[in-house]
């Protein structure tokens, strides 16, 4: 009884997650094996089921035969940030060009190679690997499948003709939110600002795409508020909001009144702590204002969705570029979200004045932390 119910739930979920219905191929292949699976296997299948290959009825002819496979890192599609954005990019490409797509979420780092290989083996034209942590997996699989095009986000792979690497100059948007944080910290009449001149930044792991945000942030704060203390810590996890919350409370107890989490799911705990203690937080990757509308004062944006869509479009139209492609302020690959009303116009104006300087390269924020 329970078992039938579970099968039913799994099938139902495919339908709810796949707006256009479950493809026949998926049903035929998977249903018989589902029927034999034990409860445990069911749960393991439940996640890939989210991805159910989409069947397109209204597909534009150009992309109908083009298949895109998306492999998330362990953060999963629920990370409120870059995995989710990559998915948004794939959906956009699906809507625009009618490409077919499929998504697999990785639960542990040992899933990366098999997940990438599965897509390559099944003849997907383009396989997207979300994240720096998949570097070696992409190196390996792209060598074995030279005809498959790969896109890796946040990592530079230069020795493969079939790999495009999207690098985001997030030190630029980190710098801008840093400038905003520094200026806000000097304001006198904002209740959330305590006058102690301390801000905090919390990273998920100490890896380059996280560090570039943090380094940019630190440089931005110091540019406008040289005396500010910038507290810095790593949670060593992207999926631990409890730790994020406690780390934020620790920084708040040391005087921080603006905290910038660069930590995926861990960051939601930071934003929660900021809301509880009524201080400001800064969102990352996507506009995270919806997580706490009155305290997330702005977000540093990383256009993973834009990059993903561009890469798919290029590959589809035979313009695929291998090697590193930079996304930055100049090509709107990074940016900042509109701030909340608590941010004074004078601050905003000052922040905006830095944009042309960054675009023209007159200011080049560091991509590495000074403590390293």
């Amino acid at each position, binding site marked *: 009884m329970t078992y039938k119910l579970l099968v039913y739930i799994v099938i139902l*979920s495919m339908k709810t*997650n796949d707006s256009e219905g479950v493809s026949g191929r998926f049903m035929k292949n998977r249903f018989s094996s589902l029927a034999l699976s034990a409860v445990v296997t069911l749960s393991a299948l439940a*996640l890939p089921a989210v991805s159910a290959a989409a069947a397109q009825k209204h597909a534009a002819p150009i992309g109908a035969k083009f298949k895109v496979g998306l492999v998330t890192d362990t953060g999963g599609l*629920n990370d409120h940030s870059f995995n989710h954005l990559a998915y948004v990019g794939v959906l956009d490409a699906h809507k625009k060009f009618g490409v077919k797509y499929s998504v697999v979420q990785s*639960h542990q780092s040992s899933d990366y190679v098999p997940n990438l290989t599965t897509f390559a083996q099944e003849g997907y034209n383009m396989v997207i690997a979300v994240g720096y942590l998949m570097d070696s997996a992409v190196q390996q699989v792209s060598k074995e499948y030279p005809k498959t095009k790969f896109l890796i986000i946040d990592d530079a792979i230069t020795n493969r003709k079939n790999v495009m690497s999207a690098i985001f100059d997030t030190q630029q948007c980190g710098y801008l939110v840093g400038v905003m944080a520094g200026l806000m910290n000097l304001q006198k009449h904002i209740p959330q600002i305590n006058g102690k001149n301390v801000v905090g930044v919390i990273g998920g792991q100490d890896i380059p795409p996280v560090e570039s945000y943090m380094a940019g942030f630190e440089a931005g704060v110091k540019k406008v508020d040289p005396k500010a203390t910038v507290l810095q810590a790593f949670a060593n996890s992207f999926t631990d909001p*409890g730790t994020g919350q*406690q*780390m934020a409370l620790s920084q708040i107890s040391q005087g921080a009144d603006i905290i910038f989490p660069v930590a995926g799911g861990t960051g939601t705990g930071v934003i929660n702590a900021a809301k509880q203690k009524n201080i400001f937080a800064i969102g990352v990757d996507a506009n995270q204002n919806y997580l706490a509308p009155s305290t997330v004062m702005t977000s540093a944006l990383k256009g993973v969705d834009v990059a993903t869509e561009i890469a798919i479009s290029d590959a589809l139209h035979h313009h695929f570029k291998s090697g590193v492609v930079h996304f930055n302020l100049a090509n709107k690959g990074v940016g900042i979200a509109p701030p909340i009303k608590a941010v004074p116009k004078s601050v905003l104006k000052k922040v905006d004045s830095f944009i042309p300087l960054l675009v023209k390269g007159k200011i080049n924020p560091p991509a590495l932390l000074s403590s390293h």
Partner: protein
Amino acid sequence: MSVLGLVFSNPELYGSTLAMATPLALGALGGTFSERTGVVNIAMEGIMLVGAFFGVMAAASSHSAWVGLLAGVVAGGLISLALAWPAVRLQSDQVILGMAINLFAAGLTAFLLNTVYGFGGTPISTPQLPQLTIPILNNIPFLGAVLGQQNVVVYLMILLVIIGHFFLFHTNLGLRMRAVGEHPEAADTVGINVVRIRYFGVLIGGMMSGLAGVYLSIGMLNSFEVNMTDGRGYIALAAMIFGKWTPFGSLGAALLFGFATAVSFSLQNYGVSANLIGILPYALTIVALTGVIGRSKAPAADGLPYEPSK
């Protein structure tokens, strides 16, 4: 003041220690109840996740954090029955069962999160369990800042540890549970229902682990994230072993691990790399198991299935 002085004189450090220790202590207490009756329970991680998810789900849909708490505890109890039934009735391998439940729970909760709430995550209007302010304690300097204002689950945890100790070591039922865990045949011959006692132990343990999950999701926060337990169930397992399968030992070990974590948070803000401190719980467990700090001995029949004589 030196950096260390600043770090150790900050009451936030000890508040944070309690906050980080609470899910570990509850998980370890849950494991203790299960293992004292002879059922190895490595499923705390999974049970916590299930408790965390259903806690949020019930809290969000009923707009009451208390209903969420209840639902999380019940869900923890129910999923633990999935361990109890095959372990007690079918005499299956308990370690494999525990792992199976951990994997199942990780898949199930992630899947339900996507299915029920989509990729935006749980609603931001989800209510949170209240912080309690203890009247007199709160006014004592320093101590008040540490103990006087904590989440209600933290106080529940302390209460449960005390009750758990009294129950296991000073009541008839507690004695029976320990007897079943040490020597089920002997317990059976004096008329103790081994099967029923083991079900009871696992169920109570599951409910406590469920509460640990509730604390993570609607105690500290008001949301669920995929795999948000982040290995705490396994550290709770270590705390249980380090605490020699006793409630107070579990709490002590959990506080030590919680303190190590909290110190690493504060030290990092002063530029000290805290990676070494991060391995402390695991290192201490190995030390405990090698018997350096007194011998840590599991209940004799822990993990051994028992077939009642007909």
